[in-house]
């Protein structure tokens, strides 16, 4: 379900609130996310790893991606 349409022209606020109440849990959160300190620390660790410095060979990443795509293509038939 993408949207709930409520015709509001002849309804008061309380009635609108009552109508949409059962659907509030379907609302998706959007907007900026605050990253936890732990997450930022883990990212720093990953970035500072020797294998993640410029010049490192990442051919295996593309090869893995290719293999996943081939696999899913085969599944799709």
């Amino acid at each position, binding site marked *: 379900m993408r949207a709930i349409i409520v015709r509001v022209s002849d309804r008061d606020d309380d009635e609108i609130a009552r109508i949409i109440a059962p659907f509030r849990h379907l609302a998706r959160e959007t907007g900026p996310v605050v990253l936890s300190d732990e*997450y930022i620390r883990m990212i720093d660790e990953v970035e500072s790893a020797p294998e993640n410095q410029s*010049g490192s060979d990442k051919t295996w990443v593309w090869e893995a991606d290719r*293999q996943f795509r081939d696999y899913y293509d085969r599944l799709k038939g």
Partner: protein
Amino acid sequence: MGLGGGPPVPGLLRPLERLILTGPDPFSRLAAGLERSGVRYVVIGIAGVNHYAQSAGIVFTTEDRDLFLPLDPGNALKAWRAALDAGFGLWSGDEPLGRPLDEVLAEQVVSRRALVRAEGHGVVVDLSFVMAAFSFDDVWPRRRIFKVDGIDVPVASLKDIVASKAAAGRPKDRLFLATHEDGLRQLGRRRRGRPPK
């Protein structure tokens, strides 16, 4: 995302066998063309994050690859021509990118910061002038230059990519961030010899 760990590539085929059977990877051809043409770009999005994965088990799958380009019409033009040479078609919205491919068109596209999509061989590459919360000049000095099939591939820093996704905060970004954070946490536990929760 799997968390199987293990060796980087569960290769069923050796690289040469794969090359003979399938030909060069289209994205590799594009990256080689971009390098030859001296195009300035960085890989961002999930495709960028994957370059920092510890093993094939924590590589995310994504339908498209995102390349971030500076607001430079000449550079964009070189990128589009490299994509065409690599056998990709160019799209803007639902329509083919206009012709002729020249500076006038490039200036229009750049001024609107319009997304151009390169599609071909089952591969989709977004050539974007927008990265949430960052300008190109912000991310360019912090990029890593990784080697892929002997090609230099500039990739935005992991911290910049994650921060951009956090700033955008769309549902798919939130899902990615939660999954990525959990993946890193489990990896850390495994490294410290504790079983993942």
